[in-house]
Structure formats: structure tokens, C-alpha cells
């Protein structure tokens, strides 16, 4: 089993590499979606615990993966990624989506202020609540952020499909990545558009996050609207061919 995967992995990457290199050499063909790294490069793993396991604890699969990793080329770690325990991939992604014009500094400070605002509000509520309620109040801003985004994720989406000269909105299952992206996108868009004048982004975003955490608010409503539309159009589901 392991042996087969050796040659399969090696062959796939090399085949892809060979094909890609051949395409690059041909003068008439230029690839649009290309990267400075070749196709044989693998993404880096900045997780500290990944390499620390002593050899005795590794399973066969992990040992094999480790050995295979030794033969592969690895990309450089991006500038926003560290092995720190405070680095959260979801937060980084949201920060990037909030960024305008490449000012990562501003986006990151806004995100930090948002999380601080969330924490402050929750602590106020905590101190004002009675003993039984205190156990139910979540104070960690990261768990609130993750849970809020998870609550906003739609399960099914709509895709315009051209049939007979008309575009029909066809219900389609969404992948995990697409769902997470839509949740973040809706959240940020809503906070930008539907806020009263002179409200700052952290304030509005923290308010929306807390509402989404409690399964209320405009973003959750938008998710439900999407689900209702999909349910209404379920007769068109057979237009999908994939």
C-alpha cells in the first residue's frame, strides 16, 4: 500500500511537473494562472507540534509521510504566518478579506479592536449577570468568532445556469471553503453597508458577531433567505450536471 502510494505520488507530481514544464517551454502557450513556485512545491507546515513527536509515537503512515516530506521541495512560509499559538488561520483570512488597498496594518488593528470590543462586551454582561447565567456566557473572543462564522455558513447555494436562453437560479451544494468564504464575506459586507453614520468598524463588527453567535441578526437572516430560495427552486435541481 505504501509502496504504491510512493510511485503514485511521485509520478503524479512529476507528471504534472513534466507537463507543466513542457507547457512552459512551448512558445505559443502561456499559462495565466501560474506561480513563481513550480508545481512540485508543497505548502509549508508551520505548526510546532508537527515535527516534535518522538519516533516511537509515529504510526506507519506518519513515518512514511515524514520520509516522503524529506524528498519534496517546500515553499517559503508567507509573511503573515508564524508558529505562534496566537496565530489563527480563520482570523488571518478574515483580516485579509477586510483589508482594503493592501493596508494590512489597518486591517489587523481593526480586527484586534473588534476582538477586544467583543471581549469587553462579554465581560460587562458577565459581571452584570447572576451566578447561574455566568456559566452560560462565553468570554473567549476567538470561540465567539468561530462559532458566529459557523452559524452564518449556508448549507446550500444558488448558481445561475444558462438553459434555453434564460438564467435559472439552481440550488447547488457548496464546498467547505466556499461556505466559510460566504460567511465571512456577508459579515464584512453587511458591516460596511448597513451601519449608521460615524460608527466605526470594530464596534459594528463586534455587535454583528455577538448577534450571529446568538443566531440572530441580519447575516443569519441572509443565510435563511438563501436557504428559502434554494428550497423554492428545488424543482430546478436537475439542471445541475456535476
Amino acid at each position, binding site marked *: 500500500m505504501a509502496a504504491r502510494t*510512493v510511485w503514485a505520488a511521485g509520478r503524479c507530481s512529476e507528471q504534472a511537473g513534466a507537463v507543466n514544464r513542457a507547457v512552459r517551454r512551448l512558445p505559443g502557450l502561456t499559462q495565466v494562472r501560474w506561480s513563481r513556485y513550480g508545481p512540485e512545491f508543497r505548502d*509549508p*507546515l*508551520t505548526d510546532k507540534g508537527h515535527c516534535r513527536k518522538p519516533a516511537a509515537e509515529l504510526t506507519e503512515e506518519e513515518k512514511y509521510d515524514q520520509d516522503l516530506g524529506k524528498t519534496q521541495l*517546500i515553499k*517559503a512560509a508567507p509573511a503573515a504566518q*508564524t*508558529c505562534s499559538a496566537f496565530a489563527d488561520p480563520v482570523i488571518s483570512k478574515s483580516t485579509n478579506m477586510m483589508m482594503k488597498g493592501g493596508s494590512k*496594518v489597518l486591517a489587523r488593528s481593526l480586527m484586534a479592536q473588534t476582538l477586544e470590543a467583543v471581549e469587553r462586551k462579554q465581560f460587562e454582561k458577565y459581571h452584570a449577570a447572576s451566578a447561574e447565567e455566568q456559566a452560560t456566557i462565553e468570554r473567549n473572543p476567538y470561540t465567539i468568532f468561530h462559532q458566529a462564522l459557523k452559524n452564518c455558513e449556508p448549507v446550500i447555494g444558488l448558481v445561475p445556469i444558462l438553459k434555453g436562453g434564460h438564467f435559472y437560479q439552481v440550488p447547488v451544494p457548496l464546498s467547505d471553503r466556499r461556505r466559510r468564504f460566504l460567511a465571512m464575506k456577508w459579515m464584512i459586507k453587511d458591516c460596511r453597508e448597513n451601519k449608521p453614520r460615524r460608527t466605526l468598524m470594530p464596534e459594528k463588527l463586534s455587535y454583528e458577531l455577538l448577534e450571529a453567535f446568538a443566531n440572530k441578526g441580519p447575516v443569519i437572516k441572509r443565510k435563511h433567505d438563501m436557504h428559502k430560495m434554494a428550497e423554492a427552486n428545488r424543482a430546478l435541481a436537475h439542471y445541475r450536471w456535476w
Partner: protein
Amino acid sequence: MAAPCVSCCRGLSYRLFLGLRVNFAQRQGYWQTLPVDAQTAPESQILRLIHTTVVTTKKNVSASGRDSYTEDFIKKQIEEFNIGKRHLANMMGEDPETFTQEDIDRAIAYLFPSGLFEKRARPIMKHPEQIFPKQRAIQRGEDGRPFHFLFYTGRQSYYSLMHDTYGKLLQLEKHNDPFPQKTESMNPIGSRWLIKEELEEMLVEKLSDQDYMQFIWLLEKLLTLQYGPAEEEFIQRFRRSVTIQSQKQLIEPLQYDEQGMAFSTSEGRRKSARAEAVVYERGSGKIRVNGIDYLQYFPITQDREQLMFPFHYLDRLGKHDVICTVSGGGRSAQAGAIRLAMAKALCSFITEDEVEWMRQAGLLTSDPRVRERKKPGQEGARRKFTWKKR
């Protein structure tokens, strides 16, 4: 003395042609062609040159295919190459016995400097096996009767290879116990099966993906049985080695200053920033960049996190002192350049396993991404001008 020089020049001139696949027809003036003789003695059923030029003949190309080179011709080229190699070594003042291909390349680049951009258009001198395309030996005799018993399958090399491999498999199965217990896998990471292109090159035949997969499946089945040295040699013909990437990492040697403290220097680059870092063995975690403390030089948290990244990954946060110089680029590029320089310099103080961990974390790879150029007819690198209907 004149005669060897002449032969060497001729030998060299034969060898020094363009690296592109040479059309046999164009070289007609230089090479001597053997005529195709219809009435030869029946015992001379060995390879004969079927010399075709594109210009003179459009007749049907026989089973031996396109323009072919005889074995004698190739042998002669190899001899001339070896003689030429020795003469070249003598010319460069090196020992002819230990003159490797890299030395040949260097000598040719020195003697025939070329400013051509296309590397394959420059003068080269390589072994004839690498220059002349591998081609099939002539497969039929004079009477039209093919030599190989599998000729009429159309792919005799592939099917004969499969036949041999399966024969070996059956033989081993006969001698072994019916349920073999293979305790360890005989596939260490250092080698891989050859890929479809390599197998095609070896057999000089086109293969389909299924054929290739069938063959590899057979070989893997062979691996599960117990085999002797003959089968081992057979299998090794189809294995290629894979480079262990961590061994390619260059580790800087340690230097010592006046107080006896060990330090290590290294450089790093990112976009247009160039950095050089000196990491001391013992210290308290202070980092000075261009004479300024890193807290003042990098007011942004993200940059300081990047500086801390290599040390944090190895749990050596407060243990080393660093003095670095950096120039060019922007703030993030400078931080990335210093990070790379520090990671490379740290390699001298840590074990090989830790070097491999750092490599897996992406700390030792130089980031090749640079700003993409603006193209003519577009507003930016990717952005096009606004489309106007009229």
C-alpha cells in the same frame, strides 16, 4: 604532431554542433553515407544503414522508422568523442583520465564563449548517447522476416519486457511459499519507480498510461516475493534515486571572534531587500538591525513576529544575539530577508533533524515571488483596460 592535431580538430568539429536535434539531411556533406546495397551476402543480416534524407526520398519509411543511424556509426561517434575528450583535456592542461562531463562543459564554455540566450543553441560537447536520439534496431531481416517473436504485436519491447517480468514472477511463486510474509517494505524513500516518459525512452516505444501502470503493478508484485540478486538487479534497472532535499541545505561554518564566542553569518533575500545576519551562540535575545534595536526599526508587530519565528520554532527565543544589516525593499520584504538570513545562520548551531524541521516549516526556502511586470496593452500586470463597446 600535426596529424593528431588535425584528427583532434576534425573530431572536435564533428562533435561541436548545435544541441538541437540535427536533421540528418543537413549534415549530408560532412558524413559519409553507406549505400544501401540490395544484393548483399546472406550472412550479413546485421544492421545496415538505411540512409534517408528528407530531400531525396519520400518513399515509405520501413519498419525501422525514420532516419536511422547504424550501430557502427554510433560506435565511431563514441570513439571520436572519447578521443576529442582526451585532446580537450590536454588542451586545458588537465588529466585526461579524470576529465568529467562537467569539466568538458566548462572547457567548451571557456573556449567557445557564446552570448546566445537560448541555452540549447550554445555549443555543447556531450556523449553521443545524449545527442543522437535512441532508436530501435532494425527489426526485420533481408527476407522481411522479423527477428523478434513478438514483432507482430506492434510493441515488441514492451510485451517482451512484460513477458520476462511475468516469467520471473511465476518462477519465484513456484519456489516460494504460497503466503509470503514480507516483514519490511523494500521501498525506501530514496528511490522511486521510473516514470512513464523514462520507460518510453528506455524501450523506444510509445506507451499508454494503462500499459505503464500494468508494468509497475507487476514489478510491485515481484517486490512482495523473496528474490535473489539476479532479480534484484533486474528490478534496480527500473528504479531511480530521489534526492533527499534536506541534504542539499548548505550549513555555514562556525566562526569565532576575539572573546571566543562562536557566531555564524548568513545572507537572505526577499523581493529587492538584501540582508546579512550574524547570530551569536550565547546571548539574551537582543536583535540589532542596522545599529538600531529591532523594536524601533520594526514598529509593526507582524515584522517582529517574523523575526522571532525561527527562534520560536526551535524554542531558542532568548538564547541568541543577532546583529544584522539590511537594505532595499519595503518593511515586509526587509523582515522576510532578515528572517531567512537568521534561519540559515541558525543552521550551524542545531542538529540535522532540526534543520529538516525548519525546512518543512518553510523557513529555509528563499521566496521567489517578485513584483510582476506591467504588460503592454494592459493597465497593470493583470488588470486590463476598461472594455468599451465602441
